[in-house]
């Protein structure tokens, strides 16, 4: 078909480095790094040493380090020390324990240190990366990767994920994509996907109409979205690697949106018939299985629980849009939100315990989370601007959202607590409705 993302290069993970295999549990910095408003862990990321004879024409030395720095900063858990303060010359000092001086790093305040080297051969690069505990003068973990030079960011993301794993026991989420809606400065809304760091941008649609509400299948290989490209809004399922697309239309009415279930077997869709929007359960080919949560009012925006047994959705059955939870087996519905008069766009955390949503505060919109059992919601963004459309990272520790705090709508991420709000790379237009992919393989 027309457009697709191609598999390109093999990325081999050959590590862990034997020497570091059992250093993992011996250090004192394991566990969640910071608490509420706590200190960020000071870490240095040295430019990589060129271990080969070929020149570093692709600027991998700094490129890989820059990517790791970007990721660690994005997490909000680290204070990455300014490279200008680094003492040693990365091309002269070694990368294995004993071949450099930990004092060069403790002197500048680093408690963690990332060093590495690389060897270029043709269009491939072999990269070894190590995380050191500067206090204990010890290596924490080492990994070796081989891949295409142009995929070096993937290698850096992989190791950043491993650093997060070392500190928190759960790998990071930097090898992920965001699907989102962007005007790119024009007047049409098109679906885009990009890596979390803004690289590897890919435009899913280019039909010069309105394309909305992208969401991922749980294998990260397809994007479901709503489009007016055939004049009436319909659902489309686009496979990124084949470029194939399926279109779903109901026998009566129109689809306004939908989400694929965690097992990939079902789609929960919003169908509008004669002005009424209700939820329908479809099979993965778009065939109607049954109606869900039928009501004379508005029912929209279903989001699956991670076990696929429940849906959180928006209904105005009580007079204003509120969140409700439907148990599929029993068809029982319970109201989740009681505060505020406009609560929409829910997304269930992959951890299962909380639901993120957009709530109206005065004339502004803010991102909230609420426990699945209900109770007091947590407001995560300030109402000095609008923040909307939250989406969880695959580990449930971060939330991406869109906000107009810098004028146009841009994408941001924050920790699930609301801390460390950081802007992602933008398109120059209005970027909205992010959907965070599962971890890429």
């Amino acid at each position, binding site marked *: 078909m027309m457009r697709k993302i*191609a*598999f390109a290069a093999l990325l081999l993970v050959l590590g862990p480095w034997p020497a570091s295999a059992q250093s993992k549990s011996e250090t004192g910095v394991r566990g969640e790094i910071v608490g509420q408003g706590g200190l960020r862990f000071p870490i240095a990321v040295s430019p990589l040493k060129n271990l080969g004879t070929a020149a570093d024409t692709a600027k991998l030395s700094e490129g890989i380090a820059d990517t790791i720095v970007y990721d660690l900063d994005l997490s909000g858990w680290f204070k990455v020390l300014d490279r200008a303060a680094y003492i040693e010359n990365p091309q002269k000092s070694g990368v294995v324990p004993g071949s450099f001086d930990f004092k060069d790093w403790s002197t500048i305040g680093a408690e963690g240190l990332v060093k590495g080297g690389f060897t270029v051969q043709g269009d491939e690069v072999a990269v070894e990366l190590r995380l050191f505990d500067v206090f204990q003068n010890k290596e924490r973990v080492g990994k070796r990767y081989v891949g295409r030079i142009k995929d070096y960011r993937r290698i850096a993301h992989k190791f950043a994920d491993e650093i997060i794993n070392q500190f928190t026991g759960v790998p990071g989420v930097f090898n992920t994509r965001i699907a989102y809606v962007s005007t790119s400065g024009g007047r049409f809304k098109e679906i885009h996907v990009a890596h979390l760091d803004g690289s590897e941008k890919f*435009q899913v649609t280019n039909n*010069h*109409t309105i394309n909305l509400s992208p969401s991922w299948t749980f294998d990260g290989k397809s994007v479901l979205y709503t489009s007016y490209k055939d004049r009436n809004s319909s659902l489309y399922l686009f496979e990124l690697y084949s470029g194939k697309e399926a279109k779903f239309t109901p026998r009566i009415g129109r689809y306004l949106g939908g989400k694929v279930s965690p097992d990939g077997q079902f789609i929960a869709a919003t169908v509008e018939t004669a002005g009424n929007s209700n939820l329908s359960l479809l099979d993965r080919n778009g065939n109607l299985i049954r109606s869900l949560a039928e009501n004379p009012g508005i029912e929209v925006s279903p989001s699956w629980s991670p076990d696929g047994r429940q849906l959180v959705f928006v209904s105005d059955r009580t007079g204003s849009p509120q969140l409700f939870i439907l148990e599929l087996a029993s068809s029982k519905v319970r109201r989740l939100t009681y505060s505020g008069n406009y609560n929409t766009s829910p997304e269930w955390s992959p951890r299962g315990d909380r639901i993120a949503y957009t709530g109206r505060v005065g004339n502004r919109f803010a991102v909230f989370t609420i426990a699945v059992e209900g109770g007091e919601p947590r407001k995560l963004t300030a109402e000095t601007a609008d923040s909307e459309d939250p989406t969880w990272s695959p580990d449930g520790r971060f939330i991406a959202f869109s906000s107009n705090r810098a004028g146009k709508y841009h994408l941001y991420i924050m920790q699930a607590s609301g801390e460390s709000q950081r802007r992602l790379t933008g398109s120059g237009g209005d970027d909205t409705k992010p959907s965070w992919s*599962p971890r890429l*393989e």
Partner: protein
Amino acid sequence: MAAMNKKVSCGLVAILLLAATGCSPSVASKPDDASAASTTPSKSAEQRPGEGKRAPTGESTAAGQSSLDQLREGKSSATSGPLKDIYFSFDRYDLEVEARSTLKANADWLKANPAARIEIEGHCDDRGTNEYNLALGAKRAQAAKDYLVTLGITTERLSTISYGEEIPTCKDTNETCWRQNRRARFVIIPGRAAS
């Protein structure tokens, strides 16, 4: 779905974006040219005025053009013609007094032009969530349709569509503009319009 169709190598495969093959130059998108691509949509649409084929070019004063076609052609979606918009309050789809009186006038025009069929568009202001606003716009269009039916217009002459908050007539952040966007719009379906 997660475990299905996985090739063994996929687990360690990195992905490279390629320019899509086999598509026309204006559609091709390369990984690193997002900024270049970003400027093309509006331009190329302007260069291809015939793209919104299903609508007329506006010689007929009575025939309308859908908001979607106007968007495609870069025109304002402000309404001109015999049928006036009606307006709604925030997050509401009930008909206000003024809306009812406008609908009566619109019904009179429809009675005087019995061959005309119209599509009623429901719109919202840009606050709130896109998908909820699609549903809200559908409610607004339906409310207008239902009232026209009670005024004696046959349902066969009236279709509805919601554009939610996607095709505003103005983009200011104040109540005057928001109210202008919270509208139902009445588009005379081309080709069937009475003179």
